[in-house]
């Protein structure tokens, strides 16, 4: 049946019958072949991985520090606490683990991690808009709310305890040939396996 004719087509090549049946439509920017290949159709995973790695390398080459996400989130939390009247500069954590936080004049605009975090949000938004695929996806159920809350808290706490996340520890730490990166790799796998069971049981 159809299986005999099966052929994986990863590009836009169109079953001729479908194209003819669909009929013509006014051509727009989006239909131009190169535009579609570059900006609409998804890139392969390996392409993404290589580009991300190259960008990380560029970051280290230029600044001496690799890509990280979650340390800056701890800074954001601390700054918010400061805005609410607390004094995060007294936390032992910053004195002992991240002394850069207490450096005079250190703030959002001088923190590389904060800049890349905000940049990623902007870049992702730019990417979907260029593809014409932006859409607001609202929360559908209370399950999603509890998943977001619990998942977010667990990630924040876990990243501090592990001294990093899938980026800082894994994507930057491991290629730096730091042992903690490898240990984190194994641990995140185990955690993801456990999380999958919880997900299927309680959050689907």
């Amino acid at each position, binding site marked *: 049946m159809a299986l005999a004719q099966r052929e994986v087509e990863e590009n836009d090549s169109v*079953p001729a019958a479908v194209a003819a049946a669909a009929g013509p*439509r006014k051509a727009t920017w*989006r239909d131009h072949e190169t535009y579609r290949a570059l900006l609409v159709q998804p890139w392969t995973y390996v392409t993404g991985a290589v580009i991300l790695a190259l960008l990380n390398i560029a970051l280290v080459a230029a600044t*001496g520090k690799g890509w990280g996400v979650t340390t800056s989130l701890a800074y954001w939390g601390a700054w918010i606490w400061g805005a609410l009247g607390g004094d995060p500069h007294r936390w032992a954590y910053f004195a002992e683990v991240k002394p850069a936080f207490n450096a005079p004049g250190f703030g959002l605009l001088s923190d590389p991690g904060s800049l*890349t975090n905000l940049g990623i949000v*902007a870049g*992702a938004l730019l990417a979907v808009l260029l593809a014409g695929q932006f859409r607001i996806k609202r929360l559908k159920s209370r399950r999603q709310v509890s998943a977001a809350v619990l998942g977010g808290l667990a990630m924040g706490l*876990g990243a501090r305890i592990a001294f990093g996340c899938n980026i800082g520890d894994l*994507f930057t730490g491991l290629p730096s040939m730091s042992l903690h990166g490898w240990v984190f790799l194994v641990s995140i796998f185990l955690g993801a396996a*456990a999380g999958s069971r919880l997900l299927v049981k309680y959050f689907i």
Partner: protein
Amino acid sequence: MTTAIEPRSNVRRPLRPPVTRKERASQLPWALGLFALIVAAGVYIVRAGGSPKLGFIWVVGVALGLALQRSRFCFTAAMRDPVLTGSTSLTKAVVAGLAVGTVGFSAIQLGAYFKAGQLADAAKLAALEPVGLHTVVGGALFGAGAVIAGGCASGTLMRMGEGFLQQWLVLPFFVLGSALGAVTWPVWKAALRVAPSGGVWLPAALGGFLPALLVQFGLLLAVWLLADWWGRRHAS
């Protein structure tokens, strides 16, 4: 060229009558507007921060977001799918990224080593963190949280940009969890016996770059082969 947005398929015949795409206003003007804002933000960052390097970092961030979204990259799925669906295509891609990263980072480290003559100078450029039980505990907690939340650290940021309100909700709790983790540092530092700094760098621990790189690439290859075998075995 006058065609509809064509469907993609793995068979040469249509499975059903084609659906015409809804006619919507183009999003391109928004994209161009955002691009202008991004450039403006970059200028502001350089001026306010007093260093062009900060502008470079901002551009890298934007490029990271673009690359993440365009390739639908998801570290969470790389960790989760082998167990949940038997797919390891993302896992293998992550390994490829780690391999490229290793090549680049070790080149930079080697450069520093040859320049200064001391292994310790090269180590300064490595992202070293203390390793121990806490790495396992934290990593497992992070992995579980990422799967439940529907995205990891980079995935959360990427999906915020894509318009997923769920990830906009994840972020404040991610920040809260991070702050709580920092403020409770004395507690888990004692409980898990954590050193505040240091770490194990393979070239130092294994007696040089050569053994370290051999081990590193050997392990990466092993992980890749394992993922490849797993993926083929679980084609269901």
